Every structure is written in C-alpha cells, then in structure tokens.
C-alpha cells in the first residue's frame, strides 16, 4: 500500500480533505500529470492531424500516432488494431452494428445478465431489426456465471458472445477467457466491455482471446470524450464505419470513392488529439503505478469496506465473496431506506457514491433490489475514506430508524 500513501496530492480535485470521492466507477478524477500533458499539447500549438503540412499539423499527427501506440500497448495490442472512439459506448455500438447487421433469424447472440446498457441496447435494437435471438447467461448461485451452463447455451447457433469483464454494479469479475474459449469452439466472435476492468486489472487482448474490446479514458484517469476499441485482424474486414466524412478516404472522384484501407476508415472527422494525448498519459500513469499494485490496493480497501459494512445492522451487501474475484466496486442496500436517500445524506457529509440502477436494469431486476448504493474505489482512495463512508452510513441508519 506504500506507493499509495498520501496519493491524493497528485489529484487537484481531491486536495480538500472534506471530499471523499468513492464514485470512480462512474468517472475517475484526473491526475495532474494527465492534465499537464493535455494542456502542454494545446500550449505547444494545435494542429489537425493528416491535414496540413505546417509544424503544428505535423506535430499533432505524430502525437496522435504515438498516443495510439501507447494506448494499444496498454492492452497488449498493436497500434493498427486500435481505433479511437468517443467512449466505451461508441466502441460497443460500432462492433455491434458491424456484427449484428449480418445476423439472421435463427442466429443467436449470447450476453450476460451483468451487461451495462451500452452492451445491451445495441444488441437489442439489432435483434429487433434482424430477427436474431439474444440469450442471457444468468447469474449463478455463486454470483458469477455458470460455465457449465454457458457450455450448454453457447452452441452452433451462437455467432457472438458479448460480455463485460467486470460488473459496474457488483464488481464481479467474469470469466471472459473461459467464455472466449467456449465461443471460439463454436466459431463465434467475442466482444468484451472492458470499461470497468482496464483501470483495475491487467488486460491483454491476445491473452484473453477476444475479437473486440472497448473501453474509455474517463474511467481510467484520462479525459472525457475519448475511448478506444481493439479490433482483431480477423474482425476488421467485417467492420463498416459509423460516420462518413473527412479523413477517411484516399480519393474521392465524381463516380467513385476510394476509402482508406487502414483505421482512418473508422475515424472520420477531425480527431480528438487532446483526448488521445490525455488518454496516453493516463495509460502511462497506470503503467508507472503497475496494475498489480493498483489491484492490491483496491483489494485491501474492498476487504476493509466489506468487513465494516457486514458489521452494521440492516445493511445488505450484494457484491460477491472475495474468492470469486471482484474489483473495487461494492454494492449494498440499507433495509427500509431508498438508495437515493442514502446517497443524498452521504453527499451532505461530503461522501460521493452512486445510487440507483447503474444503467444495468436486467441485473438489478434479477437481484430484485430496486437500486443499490455503490461504492467504487480509485487509486487515490485510502482506508480513511472507508472510515468516513462507514461513519456516514451510520448517520443514515440513525436518521432512518
């Protein structure tokens, strides 16, 4: 835990000791190093990559390309396998659109009950258009998905398995590697929503064996408005652009258009260079810390939190037992108190957490919990933050007897 002592000093937003920020699964705060990288790009002169021959444009082109290499390396990918998007949602939509629009009645897409709406609604919409079916891997008794059951469900009709690597509601780490093996055994493609995992676990796309993996910078200490999606060589030919416009063509003639044959095809419009620079800086920040250390730190905080919550009356913890594998995201409820009232009373004490359904309606419905209180850790949190949260929960319990 030593590397994380006094760590808030790297985050201007957290200098005020009255601020207890425990909502990093929604968005993380940004370290000063990332802010500095972003502003240094703009101060040094902005340019529009691939467009223009002057110094600023050349520098922007170079920065975009080096940022792409850094972000790609962060997930074990090659630069030509990584597309910039505006976030996880766009990445998942792009992939779903590419794969889903080729499916027919009789085909099956397998999702899990844990999916965020970003990995659910695109498939639901396409299923309506195309007539394929969606099957959800349910939550098993142990709180994860049952691989034996998955083996029965994933079959010759299955064309895509799309799964979140870590639940944004419960923190459960899903067995993506095992599911990918099952999928590939039947020739299905594997799409991973890594929004909650990339800043919490070491992620390597080739080790995981996925065909696409989407994530966003703002949940990993980077800027808002930029994300990336890994696209395997195998999948790339099947992809079609979501947007058409500048920068994606080699030649536009009166009667024909020759589209770019590389990733520029999927990045029409002026690129978000500042975002890419900040994204790369965030990856470097995490790499410097070491994701194994980040993970250790989170597990320590999570263990203390769960232990302390378990001692309180009327508190029901929904997150899985530690053996199962979980990230630093914990959901709980207080009997007789609506989650938004808990959130409000905690906010009044300076404690920021998230309440409600967390854009994952199938899961909260299946748990029948009508919304949860969610605590999620970031690298800047410490044991004192856990103490303050627990104090806050105690005042809620006292207020709503």
């Amino acid at each position, binding site marked *: 835990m030593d590397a994380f002592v006094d760590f808030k000093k790297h985050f201007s937003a957290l200098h005020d000791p009255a601020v207890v920020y425990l909502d990093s699964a929604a968005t993380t705060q940004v370290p000063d190093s990332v802010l500095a990288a972003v502003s240094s790009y703009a101060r040094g002169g902005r340019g529009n990559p691939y467009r223009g021959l002057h110094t600023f444009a050349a520098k922007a082109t170079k920065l975009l390309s080096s940022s792409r290499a850094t972000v790609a390396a962060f997930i074990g990918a090659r630069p030509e396998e990584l597309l910039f998007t505006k976030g996880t949602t766009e990445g998942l939509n792009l992939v779903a659109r590419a794969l889903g629009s080729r499916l027919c009645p009789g085909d099956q897409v397998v999702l899990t009950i844990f999916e965020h709406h970003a990995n659910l609604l695109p498939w639901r919409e396409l299923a309506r258009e195309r007539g394929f079916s969606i099957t959800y891997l349910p939550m098993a008794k142990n709180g994860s998905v049952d691989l034996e059951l998955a083996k029965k469900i994933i079959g010759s009709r299955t064309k895509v398995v799309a799964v979140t690597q870590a639940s944004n509601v419960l923190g459960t780490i899903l067995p993506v590697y095992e599911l990918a093996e099952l999928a590939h055994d039947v020739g299905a493609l594997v799409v991973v929503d890594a929004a909650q995992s990339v800043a919490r676990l070491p992620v390597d796309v080739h080790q995981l064996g996925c065909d696409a993996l989407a994530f966003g910078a703002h949940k990993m200490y980077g800027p808002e408005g930029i994300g990336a999606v890994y696209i395997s060589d195998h999948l790339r030919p099947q992809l079609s652009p979501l947007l058409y416009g500048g920068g994606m063509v080699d030649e536009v003639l009166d009667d024909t258009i020759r589209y770019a044959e590389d990733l520029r095809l999927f990045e029409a419009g002026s690129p978000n260079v500042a975002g890419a620079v900040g994204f790369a800086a965030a990856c470097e920040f995490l790499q410097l810390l070491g994701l194994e250390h980040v993970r250790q730190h989170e597990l320590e905080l999570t263990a203390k939190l769960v232990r302390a919550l378990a001692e309180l009356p009327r508190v029901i913890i929904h997150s899985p037992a530690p053996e199962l594998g979980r990230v630093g995201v914990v959901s709980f409820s207080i009997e007789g108190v*609506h*989650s*938004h*009232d808990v959130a*409000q*009373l905690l906010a*009044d*004490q300076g404690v920021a957490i998230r309440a*409600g*359904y967390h854009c994952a309606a199938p899961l909260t419905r299946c748990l029948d919990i*009508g*919304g949860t209180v969610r605590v999620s850790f970031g690298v800047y949190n410490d044991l004192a933050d856990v103490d303050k949260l627990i104090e806050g929960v105690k*005042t809620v319990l006292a*207020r*709503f007897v």
Partner: protein
Amino acid sequence: MSDMYRQQLLDHARRPRHHGVLAEATHTRHEANPSCGDVIDIYLVTSSNGLVEQVSFTGQGCVISQAATSMLLESVAGRSVAEVLAMCPEDVVGLLGIEPGPMRINCALLPLRALHKVLSR
C-alpha cells in the same frame, strides 16, 4: 446537514396521506422516474363541475418522491381541475419547504407531472 429530510417530509414519506387504490377513480396515471426508480400510481375522482373530489396513490421510491406525492395530493383534494393544471413546479417546491436541487427536482416533480398529464386529457 441539509434539511432535505426535515421532519414533515419524513413523516409524509413514512405515513403517506391518501395512500391506497381508489376503485371508483375516474382518472388513473402511472408515472416513473428512471434515474431514481421512483414509481407512483395516482387515482382521482373528479366531479361533473370540474372539482378534484377524491385523491389517492400508491408508490415506491425515495423520500422526496413519496413525500411530494403525499403532500401534493393532500393539497389538491377539493380544488378545481383548472387550479391544479395551473400549478407550477415552484408550488411543489413551496409545499415541500426545501430546495431539492438539480439532481432531485425530478423526484419532487413526479406527482405534478402525473397530475398534469392525467387531467389535461
């Protein structure tokens, strides 16, 4: 600490007035607030001369939404449909006696939205 949970609100949330289903309702309306997951069903009986004669509701959700429904329905019982349609968000905030703020205003306005929709039909 904010007075968002002042005693009167907690009391209305805990012991809502006019709670239950009105079998003879002339108007019913289901209204939901997706962010909080608050839901209410309101039941009204209006008279031929345009008065809201009876009111009731059932629902589930946060203190603000349930207390606001209880307080608002209590205040509209016996008033004319036209008067109720003329009510504005500020009236609800006035009834609650707190400033719900941008994040909770939707909880507070859930019952007014329901009333306006059902009575303007």
